[in-house]
């Protein structure tokens, strides 16, 4: 064994322009049909449809029936498939994809091709259609790949509005800018509602008493949220119903300065104001 390092050189084997190969009448017909955007198979003496076509029946070695071409697909069903997480430079797609054996409708053999679909969509039995290249030359790669059948669509909704808070809520929000929770007391029911409102939701009486409640209160129930929210202090974060001192109905608000796992029902909290509104509530000992 040589003990000294061997010099290494890069060596490229390439046939400029590639080999020119004749297709013969059967493969030539298939490639010509591909160029026209059609997929054909050829019938054997046993009436089997070979796709892609061969000049002979692989089962018997007998020549296929001359000129008995039949259009198949273009859709087909995935049989075996294998996932490629890191495509090679010679692969048909530059992102993760699947190789598959596809039984085109009307064919008795399976076509090897690539499938552009998410990994989680891949399964035996998946229905797929070809994605054709725009500029076709008569090559198996005139089909860029196959893609799943359309089974769902995405319906987007987006409309814009101009909203106002209404008379009562405007008074409540104005009060918040002064770090005050404004509530309304129904003299008939003797109940204090926050946010402030113009009428009692129980008896319908006009509310005339304005009272201030909070800014401390008690957590009555809460939820731990694991999806990020730009207003929340962190993930996971807690949204809670808080019964402000002096009120009979709770309001919903975020909790801050406390880990989600430390929140309990009955916990005493106090509002933290910032920018003319309630940022969140924090445990009273720290507020």
């Amino acid at each position, binding site marked *: *064994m040589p003990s000294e390092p061997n010099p290494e050189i890069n060596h490229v*084997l390439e046939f400029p322009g590639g080999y020119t190969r004749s297709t013969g009448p059967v493969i030539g017909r298939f490639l010509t049909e591909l160029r026209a955007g059609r997929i054909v198979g050829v019938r054997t003496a046993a009436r089997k449809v070979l796709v*892609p076509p061969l000049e002979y029946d692989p089962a018997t070695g007998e020549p296929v029936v001359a000129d008995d071409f039949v259009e198949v697909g273009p859709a087909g069903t995935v049989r*075996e498939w294998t996932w490629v997480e890191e495509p090679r430079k010679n*692969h048909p797609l530059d992102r993760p994809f699947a190789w598959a054996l596809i039984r085109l409708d009307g064919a008795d*053999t*399976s076509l*090897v091709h690539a499938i552009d679909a998410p990994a989680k969509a891949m399964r035996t039995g998946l229905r797929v259609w070809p994605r054709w290249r725009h500029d076709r030359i008569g090559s*198996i790669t005139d089909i860029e790949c196959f893609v799943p059948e359309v089974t769902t669509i995405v319906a987007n909704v987006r409309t814009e509005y101009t909203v106002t808070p209404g008379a009562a809520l405007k008074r409540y929000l104005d009060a918040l800018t002064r770090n005050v929770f404004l509530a309304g007391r129904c003299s008939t029911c003797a109940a204090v509602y926050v946010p402030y409102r113009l009428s009692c939701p129980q008896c319908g009486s006009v509310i005339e008493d304005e009272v201030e409640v909070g800014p401390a209160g008690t957590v009555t129930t809460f939820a731990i949220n694991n999806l990020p929210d730009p207003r929340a202090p962190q993930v996971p974060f807690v949204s809670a119903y808080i019964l402000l001192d002096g009120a009979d109905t709770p309001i919903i608000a975020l909790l801050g300065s406390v880990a989600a796992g430390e929140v309990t029902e009955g916990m005493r909290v106090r509002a933290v104001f910032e920018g003319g509104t309630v940022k969140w509530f924090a445990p009273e000992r720290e507020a």
Partner: protein
Amino acid sequence: MRPVAVAAFAQTTHTDHDSGLSEPELILPVIRAVREQSGLTEFGFTCSGSCDYLAGAPFSFVSALDALGAWPPIQESHVEMDAAFALYEAWVRLQHGDVDSALVYGFGKSSMGDLREIMTLQLDPYYLAPLGLDQLSYAGLQRSAVQGDFPAIARRSWESAQTNPYALKLPEPVETAPITDGAAAIVLVAGDLLHDRTNLAYINGIAHRIDPHYPGMRDLTRSASAAAAATAAGVGKGPVDVAELHVQFAHEETVLAEALGLSGDTLINPSGGPLAANPVMATGLIRIGEAASRVMDGTAARAVAHAASGPCLQHNLVAVLSRES
């Protein structure tokens, strides 16, 4: 059939990297070893198996003849296939009856290029090669068709390889044969050369069969050609103690064991098989050499060797070896 036996077998200590040896330099020691084992310095016929695309040089197999000293001119042939198929040609040549010895060798340095894409070049140029379908991808298609405990096959192969000094020292079991550089050689004898030799492994049956090339034209869960070759070679005519199978992917063992009709009593790939060392173009020949070695050392009364070529086990060769002809 004229009786033919394996009289000598040698292989390199395979490497997972380019050890710096040229191909003739890689072959030289195994040729020397089989000459010593067989006591023969010249052979009636010589046949090699290799793939020029592994080195990227046309007729690279011709320069490999430098390792033999092929002057004055010798009767020589070559297959652009695994050397197991060169051994088949040598076996056929010995059937003619005019020569009694044959040297067969195979070699490959997969480290020099990208084996997975070199294997794309063996695919048909109309339907498969333009897609860039590589070796791992078409093997993946067959794997998805086959049911079996592939990690267990990988583990058993890896454990068996621990006592094989020629195999790679892999840190853990693998389901895909590792990139390997190496070579191997076998000497076959017939006629008068069978006499006065005690350590022989007779080739009592050998055959190869081929399936359609295109994977979509086949049932990938089974290998009809391996089954047909096994029947023609007579695998089922007696118990099989050892089978050395050309398993480049763990799932291929499942397919082959069924095709060859192997029972649970057969020890499969006691060398570790190709999952422990895969010097492409020598790997199949090594299966015959390993099976012959088990017969010669008495651990197997009857052994089967298998070699494959083409995508998804397209082409299969099966040989049956035993102590007596």
